[in-house]
């Protein structure tokens, strides 16, 4: 079971904060496309400058291969506390 998490304005736009997936696509870029497939506003928000991804709580740059059971989070620009 993999988990996909959205934070901040991404969660507000999508209307969800967490989804569990039985299986993950092969790559991060495909996962992004999958979760925004029927949500053009989320697709646009995920493509905005400053949106980062974390895999298993570590920030990643660019695309990467995914494996079963991973936790993937999409993070809009951090605001500080």
């Amino acid at each position, binding site marked *: 079971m993999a988990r996909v*998490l959205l934070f901040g304005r991404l969660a*507000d736009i999508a209307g969800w904060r967490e989804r569990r997936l039985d299986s993950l696509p092969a790559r991060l870029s495909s996962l992004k496309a999958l979760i925004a497939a029927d949500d053009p506003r989320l697709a646009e928000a995920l493509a905005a400058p400053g949106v980062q991804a974390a895999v298993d*709580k570590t920030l990643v740059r660019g695309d990467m291969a995914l494996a079963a059971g991973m936790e993937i989070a999409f*993070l*809009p*620009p*951090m*605001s*500080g*506390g």
Partner: protein
Amino acid sequence: MIVRLQTEPFEPGALLTDFCRGRSETGAVVSFTGIARASAGATQALELEAYPGFTDAEIGRIAEAARTRFGLDDLMIAHRIGRIAPGEAIVFVATAAAHRREAFEAADHLMDYLKSRAPFWKKEHGPDGARWIEPTARDLADAERWD
């Protein structure tokens, strides 16, 4: 060294009391308390979102680096998450060092980091609804002083 995120309100004076206890070789303790401002009614509440396990780890990494960089004896960071009412403390940072310059600089540095780069997402609830907040230009410029 303590770093904690909590949804319950905290009392800055009680944290300072704990932090100062039993120090006979620390000359200087600096604390910073950030308080949610009412902005004359424009802000009814703040809402701070963290990513548990990620946000605390990132803050811990910066805290450890600050401890080394400024030669601190100790430091503490407590940060509220969730919904915060005006007048409540949002963040408490305390630093302990042999001399005051290092204690001041470390607290100043940690606050610049926490206010501009720490992984939180902040929403302000006002009379006209809620909006997401990003760091101010001043927050970003302050944080760059330490790069």
